[in-house]
């Protein structure tokens, strides 16, 4: 259902990452794309609680970066987390079930779209607030010389002060963390020129964190750029940042798009899927597409068949409450 190498295996020792595989990257992006398109379609049918943020257009980031993690590596994500979750190896059916408030959801329907905790994957809807947590995880991992942390965040989240507190500590303590800054040029409705002064890479460099900067929707390029960064991180040289300039095609959440349609159309020319699909051997894209359609269809079908989350039993808030 999803590539076995992405299934975390806590016991394993780091081994070297396989070289970027275009077909696997294409497949991963397509899974994300079709999953999220299906989410947007499911909304009007009243199947989904709350809201959602899709990464349609940005799939290359999740697919490319996370193709380079090793078993046991940790992934920290933000409000726009479906793609990261799927590329990490999170089960699609559990994600669909979570959005639909089913018992079988990733967090039993408690978290919804923005709050996922599964194995070594954590997402939370408070912008920037996940970065110190990611740094703390990296501090723990450094003590034991084990896994790396990959934390995704956005251009808008650079408004939050706690991000800089975290960068400072990550750099001071030379922690094994890769911060992936997905700059999609907007924070919700606000274009970057209105919310961000100075430069993005400079924000990391000011704290002594090297920042690689790419503008691409090519998942292979992203994977190839990520690889040496993670290698260095694993070698113990401290944190790294990867700034990816990209664009989202769909609204911020749903229906709330105030961007210039021409601008969207312009960026759509760089759609990561056809770009990579065209480079695959003949027929591969079609085969993968059929596989993914079946996977997505099954995920939503199974999720919808699962029982609604039930208030009969809630988990504890404290281990010993009384």
């Amino acid at each position, binding site marked *: 259902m999803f590539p076995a190498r992405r299934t975390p295996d806590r016991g394993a020792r780091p081994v070297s990452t396989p070289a970027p595989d275009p077909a696997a990257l294409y497949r991963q992006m397509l899974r994300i794309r079709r999953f999220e398109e299906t989410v947007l379609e499911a909304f009007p049918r009243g199947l989904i609680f709350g809201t959602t943020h899709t990464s349609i257009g940005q799939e290359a980031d999740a697919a490319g970066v996370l193709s380079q993690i090793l078993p046991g590596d940790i992934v920290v994500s933000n409000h726009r987390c479906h793609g990261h979750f799927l590329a990490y190896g999170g089960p699609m059916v559990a994600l669909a079930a979570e959005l639909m408030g089913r018992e079988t959801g990733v967090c*039993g329907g408690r978290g919804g779209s923005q709050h996922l905790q599964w194995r070594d994957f954590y997402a939370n809807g408070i912008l920037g607030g996940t970065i110190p947590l990611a740094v703390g995880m990296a501090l723990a991992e450094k003590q034991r010389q084990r896994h790396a942390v990959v934390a995704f965040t956005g251009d808008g989240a650079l408004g939050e002060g706690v991000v800089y507190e975290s960068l400072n500590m990550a750099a001071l303590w030379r922690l094994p963390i890769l911060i992936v800054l997905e700059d999609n040029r907007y924070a919700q*409705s606000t274009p970057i020129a209105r919310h961000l002064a100075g430069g993005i890479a400079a924000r990391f460099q000011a704290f002594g964190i090297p920042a690689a900067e790419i503008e691409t929707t090519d998942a292979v390029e992203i994977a190839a750029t990520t690889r040496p960064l993670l290698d260095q991180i694993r070698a113990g040289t401290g944190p790294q940042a990867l700034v990816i300039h990209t664009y989202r095609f769909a609204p911020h959440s749903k229906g709330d798009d105030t961007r210039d349609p021409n601008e969207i159309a312009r960026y759509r020319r760089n759609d990561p899927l056809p770009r990579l699909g065209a480079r695959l051997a003949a027929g591969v894209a079609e085969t993968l597409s059929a596989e993914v359609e079946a996977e997505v269809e099954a995920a939503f079908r199974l999720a919808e068949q699962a029982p609604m989350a039930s208030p009969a039993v809630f988990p504890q808030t404290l281990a010993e409450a009384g």
Partner: protein
Amino acid sequence: MTTVLESLGAGLRASLSESPAVYFLGEDILDPYGGAFKIARGLSTAFPDRVITSPVSEAGLVGVALGMALRGLRPVVEIMFGDFTLLAADQLINHAAKVRWLSGGAAQAPMVVRTPMGGRRGYGPTHSQTLEKHFLGAPGLRVVAASALGDPGAMLRAAVLEDDDPVLFVENKALYAVAVQPTSGLQDIEVSVHGRRYPTYQLRVAGAPAPGLTLAAYGLCGELARQAASRLAFEDEIFADVFIFTELSPHRPEALHDSLSHTRRLLTIEEGTRFLGWGAEVVAQAVEALGPGLQARRVAALDMPVPSAGPLEAAVLPGVEAILSAARALAGRS
């Protein structure tokens, strides 16, 4: 019909047009977006120089508003979700709330931090909380909550233009779509209004016998309390005084205590969790003021975060049924 949302938008617009000292700051508040909940719609077009969209920096923005207020302006800040007010707790409590007292009145901080709290929309644990309880009782900070009764927009306007202290102005998300209801001419209900800028509304079923129970609530729970009170009257012949507060901290209990001196039964209702929620202070002040003989209960959310899935959220947040059963128990009818 005017909704609470429209009324608040109109109040904000009135503030901006009446005083050039008023500024409105927040995330994504510019047209055409007009803010996450759309209260700001049209404002940046009408007042382009005084509606300022900000980076995603809640703490910084509240601090900026404080600086503006100290220079004689009257800033209004929108925090997109009430859950994010925790990021500004230091700015509100350690900075803004202390200015007047510290300077002996030489300086003051007339600023309003508006924010939607509450659930019932499936947004999940970090976008659905009712967190104002964590801000109540900070000396120098006023906390008020919009109500569908009366005129929430006028109250916002008064907070912005007339209140010379920092105000946390809480709006319940599920209240946004509710129609504003005038205090006079309500069918079957008599309303007494206590206080002026941040009134407390006292509601009784018209022509009913003397109440045997007093309900106290605010925000959306004020609506739920009203509905519960009607059902109690018509289904159980339990008659209640319903108090809907708009000022949460400080608490102005005089009229409530008057009612309680007759009913001696107090039920508080709020959407946040019970432990040190607003109701705890209401109950404690009532016991202190009224002495022995008072019975009290509190209806509130279950002691856990707010889940996303509909059935879970409905089980966690208080509804009319929870109020009815607590009221019946308190009235000795269960």
